[in-house]
């Protein structure tokens, strides 16, 4: 049984690399990714699960890393935006001007990428349901929708 108070070692699989980190049991995955591993692509914004700026993939599924404890991530495969390499959604975001300030972008990209992997032929309704978990304050969402649609396979 892990002590809930003391810092201890965690072993995380992040972006295909096995990483050993020191963390408190109360530390969120977001905190450990950023502060311990320097993976600052995942962004803190509401830290309450409302905005999705901190979204990462856990075993391929989008998870708000502000709502997950780092200890819960042990034994799972974590992908952050730094782990996306030349994926279609990244290019599509650039081509479609799907960001302005870019602060929500990592979270949106992770969500969009997971959707494209899990539901490559997602309907508009499915896409809407998935992407409603993220907030963007700069764009009108039209650009993000377009970027996503361009990556999904046409049915």
């Amino acid at each position, binding site marked *: 049984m892990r002590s809930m108070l003391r810092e201890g070692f965690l072993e995380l699989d992040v972006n295909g690399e096995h990483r050993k980190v020191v963390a408190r049991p109360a530390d969120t995955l977001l905190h450990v990714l950023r502060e311990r591993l320097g993976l600052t692509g995942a962004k803190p914004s509401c830290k309450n699960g*409302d905005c999705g700026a901190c979204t990462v993939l856990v075993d391929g599924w989008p998870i708000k890393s502000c709502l997950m404890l780092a200890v819960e991530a042990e034994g799972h495969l974590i992908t952050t935006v730094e782990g996306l390499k030349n994926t279609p959604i990244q290019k599509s975001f*650039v081509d479609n001007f799907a960001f302005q300030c870019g602060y929500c972008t990592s979270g949106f990209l992770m969500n969009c990428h997971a959707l494209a992997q899990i539901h490559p032929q997602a309907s508009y309704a499915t896409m809407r349901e998935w992407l409603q978990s993220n907030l963007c304050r*700069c764009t009108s969402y039209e650009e993000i929708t377009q970027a996503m649609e361009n990556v999904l396979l046409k049915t």
Partner: protein
Amino acid sequence: MNTVGIGISIPKKESNDKVTGRAKYNTDHIRPELLHAWMVTSIYAHARIKSIDLAKAYKITGVRAIVTGDSCPILCGPAIEDWSPLARGKVRYFGEPIAVVVGDSEAIAKEAAGLVQVEYEPLPVVNSPAQAFQADSPKVHEDLAIYEIVQAGTIFPQPGTNILQHVKVKKGDLQKGWQESEVVVEASYSLPQANHIAMEPRNARAEIKPDGQVIIDSSTQGPFNIQKFISKYFKLDNSKVTVRAPLVGGGFGGKTTVHVEFIAYLASRAVGGRPVKLVESREQDMTSSPCMLGLQASIKLGAAKDGTLKAGEFTLITDVGAYCDSGSEMARGMAADCSGPYRLDNLHCDAYSVYTNHTFVTAFRSFSRLSSTFALERTMDKLAFALGMDPLELRKKNALRPGDTSPTMVRLNKNNFGNLEACLEKLKTLINWDEGVRVELGNGKVRAKGAACLWKTSSSSPNAHSSAIIIINDDGTLNLSVGAVEIGPGSKTCLAQILAEKLRMDVNKIHVIMEVDTSASPHHWKTVASMTNYMVGNAVLEAARDFIRQLKTIGGIVLKCPAEMLEVGSGRVYLREDPEIFVDIKEIGSGYQYPEGNAIGGQIIGRGNFIMPHLLPMDPSTGRGRLGPAWAVGAQAVEVEFNQRDFSYKIVRAATVMDAGKVLNPKGARGVVMGGMSMGLGYGSREAAKYSTGGQRENPQLRTYHLLRLGENPQYLVEFVETPDINGPYGMRGIAEHGIIGIPAALANALSAAAQADLDCPPLTPQAIWQACKGAGK
């Protein structure tokens, strides 16, 4: 020639960093030596601070310092000095910072902050602008009479009251105007405060070096502004303060002011200058740092039977919360543009800012012009209804034209105003206006359209200025350095496009330095007011001219001819009469070496600056004056599908036609306009700061304060008119904020038509519409 410059939709220069997580925002600098700060904030909206007990908090291991207002006896503020970075004596709004705890980690600082014991004596609160006006209302500031006024002649507080500002604009003969009016409408409006919600919460780091140099790293729109105010209030030479601003995660005006930077500085000072990082939680960002103003407005308009406006009377009372910041300035801006882009020869406007026990306010996208525009454009629709006239027709009939004057008597011409009529014409087609304002669809559903016009000039300091530096690299590419911060709209990319166009070279060969560092970057006033491309763009053009001049001088020596015979383009200096006789700029950019080995010249550095001429403060009794160089105008419409049974609605389409002067980056411009529209729809339909009867904020998080989400967005229709402004780079006008301005009004006009009720108080939730309809007996 492969020239890539303006008018082309090139993606933002920092695009690749932003889609790979490599873009660094201010909080992304993770360093082991950083200490972390957490603010203790007020749980009351108005209370005397009886005591602050730090003993328990200091017992937490890892707490390095706790700072309270007593260790910082200063009052500050850009217009009037009414604000202490940490409250002293009393708190005036819920969320007001009282103390800051510095600890080894954020968790430690936060835990200790929770143990700071503040004893309060609650005071009666001022909870609305109307209440603020009452003679027997509690006073938010008892010391208003002795506060230092920074901007004399621009702010007129009334000691003994809660009135902080009273701006008067008078034009023509109002009595004559009423006599000529055959139809008169009058209405009142109430608009709540709201939040900016930049996705990156406000944050800053501060450090004081052993030689006294203060380093502030901030997520800010105004690094030079921070430098100015930190040095002013902590009595430091301006050059002893360095402010750095990396990429900023959204601003919308909320990051123009100096707030957390003061507190971070105090925190660092308390730990011997060690670097301290202060990041606001979302809740603090929404309650402690400044928000968007609220407005209570009464407008009376008179017109002849044919719709010609004859008279207008405006009372605009802005709820600026507990401290002034730029609240008094926004009241001025609203007053100066009170008529909207309509010809109104007889008018009176009284614009006030009043203190309340709400969160204080600062600039909000459009300098809060969306609020006054809401009131005016709702009144225009009521007037159209009273006249039995088409609302768009009424607007077109009264549209300002070159030769008319603004409320503050600025003579309009096609440069400083543009072409509103063309915008209205285009809008009419774009939104299929002629198919009818209100169409019954059956099943209790109705489709309705509403329109609004917009105009806005900046409220710039008459001496606001910008500079630019161009440096050539050995490979012939250029580095462009400016003092504008990249907050999202792609200004840096647009500036590179302006430079590319002027030098007639590929924009990909121009690197833009993203970070601003006040000790290394040329100056820029603030990244605000849609003025970046205009002001900095002009500085870039001046720098480009200087750069070209130097290239030609050395080019003339190499090519053995007078400089006047040369041109610059495609990375070459060439003979105008025969471009095949040329020298590559990389051969001469860092000195030219003759074949024999000896060399002349040196690195070419282009420099330019810009200051806006002819700005004049407003006359206190008439308002005459000129706040900004030019307006951008536009027309907007919203179409809704409204369910008469349950008062729910869907926003189907939203349209904007803007006179952009010249569109520098079409996709970028469209995106910025749509972003503004999206924000306007959010404010019109759901966003509001809710306060309890005790003035406590009830919805300070994104779970209870709702923003538009993906899929709730309507179809956007955006088009541009291009009437060049001769003073704007390549004719451009500043439009970055403007997409928001008319949208809440257009939405309310559409919904009012749909529900056949006067919907005058956003946000227009189904419940609010139901209540308005019930009130109207429907």
